[in-house]
């Protein structure tokens, strides 16, 4: 059933000539590769070599001149750059392999273009602005210079790290490093000038209990005309940590990427490993994963909704949301033993059975939850002073969404429809999907509305899942054998976390993880804040920032 769905999905973009051929019965696998090949011929004029990844993604190795030719074409055709990362020694290649991951609106397909580079290469950031941070990340991690890049500043390794320090190189061994004291070159922020223009530096230490980030505002009086953010004050080296580890030892690492995306990241990691090892996740486990994923979305959105109201100084309106959020945490604890659902997901399924009794209790609670939530939302709508603060504040323009690859509810509040659960379905979403919530204004109010609607949609989905959950095993029976005999391979896996599209790419070599690349939604979405605040006044910044709900930990791995 799934494969048919995939074909129709694959054929939808760009109204390709293959659409007619679809009627003829052809082996689906052949047809899909054929489609990708045709698309590539259409774009580049030459027939490339295409490999199908284990999660359905297309890998296309390109020679340098082919790559340079194809990039402007991709940009013209509206492809979205969703990730860019570097792998050393990929399939014994003597050079570095850069993976440029693209997707096309309306298509379920993901294309990974592979480019082979030595220590120098060229930038694509002028055509794909979202490449900028990735290229700086690769420069820091591997020492590859993007010679014509417009922004060559450091990204995650700040000036205190010594020159020539590139921790993601295979030759790099963990150990003590000597921090540079009083680094000579300071990070160059964009300078502004003129009468009445000044800069406000904020952070990295903040008054609230939040993580570190530096914000450099350039303002004329109160209106902001430029904002530059600097993050990465707490680099943990998660990608390096995973290297050389067995897949089972890496589950806790995936859980720790970002506290409130625990389930989403673990599911993405486990799905990737399961695809490589050819493990079939039992039906019941898929349902349970779906329930936990949606619970995570609910409590995360509840935090945003209450946070937005707190930031405009309306604590009385906040309380109902905080109470409901706490109740969801308690449900999480009853179901999994952990308020943040740590340790619930495991390779091949879920770690612990969740009894039918606990599920029906959850079902019962959700009924009360929806009633109380709806009355809280009604109170919000009835408050004109609140709506006045939300409406027209921090508008995110739709035209920025594709170039910056902004995803999640904040993109859906600005008119985008993209949602991994629909566009690249995984697990239970292959069979059951929630309703969509889309707004077009792109302001704080739209983000509030979209998140509120998603909370309701998630509760309905959970109810649906509980009603139809099958009995059976919760973990694949052959899991231990499959994991200990995991074949070499690589795979791309995506999930829709509460904040948007999270992407995990795993490369297994000789039974251990050789490269683990994680890109959470926040890595891309952070750049949205720099644009959404323009023209707004400084005291509205906390509200706009909160409405975008960006994770520091998820960005700084």
């Amino acid at each position, binding site marked *: 059933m799934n494969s048919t769905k995939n074909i129709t999905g694959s054929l939808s973009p760009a109204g390709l000539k293959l659409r007619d051929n679809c009627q003829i019965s052809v082996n689906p696998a052949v047809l899909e590769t054929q489609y990708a090949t045709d698309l590539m011929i259409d774009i580049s004029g030459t027939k490339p070599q295409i490999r199908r990844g284990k999660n359905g993604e297309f890998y296309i190795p390109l020679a340098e001149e082919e790559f340079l030719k194809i990039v402007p074409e991709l940009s013209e055709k509206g492809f979205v750059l969703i990730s860019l990362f570097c792998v050393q020694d990929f399939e014994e290649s003597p050079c570095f392999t850069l993976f440029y991951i693209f997707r096309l609106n309306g298509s379920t397909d993901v294309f990974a273009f592979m480019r082979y580079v030595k220590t120098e290469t060229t930038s694509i950031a002028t055509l794909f602005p979202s490449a900028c941070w990735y290229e700086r990340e690769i420069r820091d991690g591997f020492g590859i210079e993007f010679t014509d890049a417009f922004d060559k500043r450091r990204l995650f390794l700040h000036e205190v790290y010594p020159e020539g320090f590139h921790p993601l190189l295979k030759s790099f061994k963990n150990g003590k490093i000597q921090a540079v004291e009083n680094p000579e070159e300071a990070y160059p922020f964009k300078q502004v000038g003129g009468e009445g223009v000044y800069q406000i*530096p*904020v952070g990295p230490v903040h008054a609230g209990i939040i993580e570190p980030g530096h914000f450099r505002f350039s303002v004329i009086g*109160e209106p902001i005309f430029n904002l530059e953010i600097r993050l990465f004050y707490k680099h943990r080296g998660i990608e390096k940590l995973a290297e050389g580890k067995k897949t089972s030892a890496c589950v806790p690492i995936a859980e720790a990427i970002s506290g409130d995306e625990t389930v989403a990241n673990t599911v993405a990691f486990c799905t990737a490993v399961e695809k490589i090892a050819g493990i079939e996740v039992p039906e019941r486990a898929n349902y349970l994963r779906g329930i936990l994923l949606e619970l995570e979305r609910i409590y995360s959105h509840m935090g945003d909704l209450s946070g937005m109201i707190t930031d405009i100084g*309306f*604590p*009385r309106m906040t309380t109902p949301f905080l109470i409901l959020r706490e109740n969801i945490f308690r449900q999480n604890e009853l179901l999994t033993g952990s308020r943040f659902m740590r340790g619930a997901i495991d390779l091949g399924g879920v770690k612990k059975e969740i009894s039918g009794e606990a599920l029906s209790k959850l079902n019962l609670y959700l009924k009360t939850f929806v009633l109380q939530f709806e009355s809280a939302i009604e109170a919000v709508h009835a408050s004109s002073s609140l709506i*006045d603060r939300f409406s027209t504040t921090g508008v995110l323009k739709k035209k920025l969404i594709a170039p910056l690859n902004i995803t999640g509810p904040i993109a859906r509040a600005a008119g985008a429809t993209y949602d991994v659960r629909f566009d690249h379905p995984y697990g239970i979403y292959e069979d059951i999907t929630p309703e969509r919530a889309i707004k077009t204004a792109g302001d704080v109010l739209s983000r509030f509305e979209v998140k509120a609607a998603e909370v309701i949609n998630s509760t309905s989905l959970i109810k649906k899942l509980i009603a139809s959950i099958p009995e059976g095993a919760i973990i694949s029976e052959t899991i231990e054998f499959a994991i200990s005999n995991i074949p070499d391979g690589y795979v791309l896996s995506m999930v829709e976390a509460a904040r948007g599209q999270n992407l995990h790419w795993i490369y297994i070599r000789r039974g251990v993880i050789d490269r683990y690349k994680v890109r959470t939604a926040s890595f891309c979405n952070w750049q949205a804040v720099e644009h959404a605040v323009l023209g707004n006044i400084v005291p*509205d*910044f906390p509200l706009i920032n909160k409405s975008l709900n960006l994770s520091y930990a998820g960005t700084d791995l």
Partner: protein
Amino acid sequence: MNASFLLFTLLNTGFILLVSPLFMSLIKKVKASTQGRKGPNLLQSYFDLRKLMKKEVIYSPNSSGIMRITPYLNLAVLILASLFVPIVFIPEAPAGIGNIIVFLYLLAIERFFTALCGLDAGSTFGGMGSSRLMSLSAVIEPTMVIAFAALAYVLKTVNFHEMFAITAGSTIPKSPTLTLISISLFIIIIVETGRIPVDNPATHLELTMINEAMILEQSGKNLALIELAHAVKQTILMAVLINILAPWGLATKVTFAGLAVSCLYFLVKASLLAGVIGLFESSIAKMRLFRLPSFYMMAFFFSALTILMEVFA
């Protein structure tokens, strides 16, 4: 200086200093209960002041003498202003005490030094708070002038003591227009004490602050003095409103019973007013910074309306 005024100085100042922190806690308590929380102990403000008094004062190396004198100066100015607003009884005051124009200038001095102090340490947020306060003051000061002018016009005097002597003893406001002025006075309390919808005293978001931003660099004993001065200012402004709108119980002669009744009545009335302020703060969101002048304009409108009504009545 006569004996009655000396007694008034001691009693009035002592009483205001003593009860001011209570109303701060009371407002917090009311706000907490609207949010379904228990809220702080009613004596918490006193505990906080005691704690801060014991703490070391830290000065930024960039700061000047302004930072050092402002806490003392502000408290002194507000104690002086408190003499203008009788709470315990109405004394025979020397000339000048009770004059509403002097009163306005005393509040302006306090505001001026607070703003200077915000700039003094050279931190990001202090300067931002000062510039916001000064911009908004350009709107609220004329509003206050109009409100007090309306008050003076209705009661035919520019002296608070004389005004309160006229209103005292009556159970309802002397003139219906005083109710309109009371609305203006209430808005002035909200603005001058930096409460929602003008400023959020409970926030940690420096970028949204006005009043709190200017005192971010203060610490220890100096912070305690500033907090106390803030509480005193609130009590004075509340007392103005109470003595105009609900004047009964204020003693005009010095008797022990009269003093006790004055104090007790004031405590009850001010607690009720604090409750109203707490409820008001809980009922709306903070306004956008640039929308604030329209909030002040409401006070301006009611005061101007009063003057018009009195002129044509």
